[in-house]
């Protein structure tokens, strides 16, 4: 059901809406890319501005939350 490693499980969820917590930050966006050491989250701007790419070190992630899909 779940992959053996954290990075591998994250990789199966690319494209999902996600909240990523580090020691001092909470990032919300779309999970875009996952490698062994790096995660890319695209912070979605509700306005007309450009989206922001946020790169996070996998080792710095405290937890990742995948909100339940709206019914």
């Amino acid at each position, binding site marked *: *059901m*779940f*992959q*053996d*490693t*954290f990075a591998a*499980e*994250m990789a199966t969820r690319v494209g999902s809406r996600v909240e990523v*917590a*580090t*020691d*001092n930050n*909470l990032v919300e966006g779309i999970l875009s890319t996952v490698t062994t050491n790096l995660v890319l989250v695209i912070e979605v701007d509700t306005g007309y501005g450009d989206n922001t790419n946020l790169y996070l070190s*996998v*080792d710095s*992630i*405290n*937890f*990742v*939350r*995948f*909100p*339940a899909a709206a019914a």
Partner: protein
Amino acid sequence: MPNLTNRQQNLLQLANQLSQNLVNNNTGTANNVGLNKNVSLDLPGIDFDAGLNLGLGSDDRTGAPADPPPTTPTTLRDVLLGLVNEQVEVTTPFGPVTGTLIAVRDDYVVLVETDGAQALVPFENIELVSEL
């Protein structure tokens, strides 16, 4: 054997034969399988005491060792494995995550929060685990 009636002498003889049989039985076994015999006879003017003890189990000294004490977890992963399907709070430097622990994998755990969201928490950033 002075001062004994014929009846007492017969009884004493029977008792001697009986005790001799018991001694033979007890010394004839190579290992103790828990069979001990003691017989009590009350004769007029003669006290002859023995006991009967039928132990059906084997010798405790040669049996299996006593049950080992309950194992205590030695790693955080062991603790978490013991809490699967329980309500837990996992604390990280950012803050706590609360939910039902549904999986423990090689380097992370999966919690389902009350609103249905799934949270993946890597071991390396777990500071505290508590069962709710």
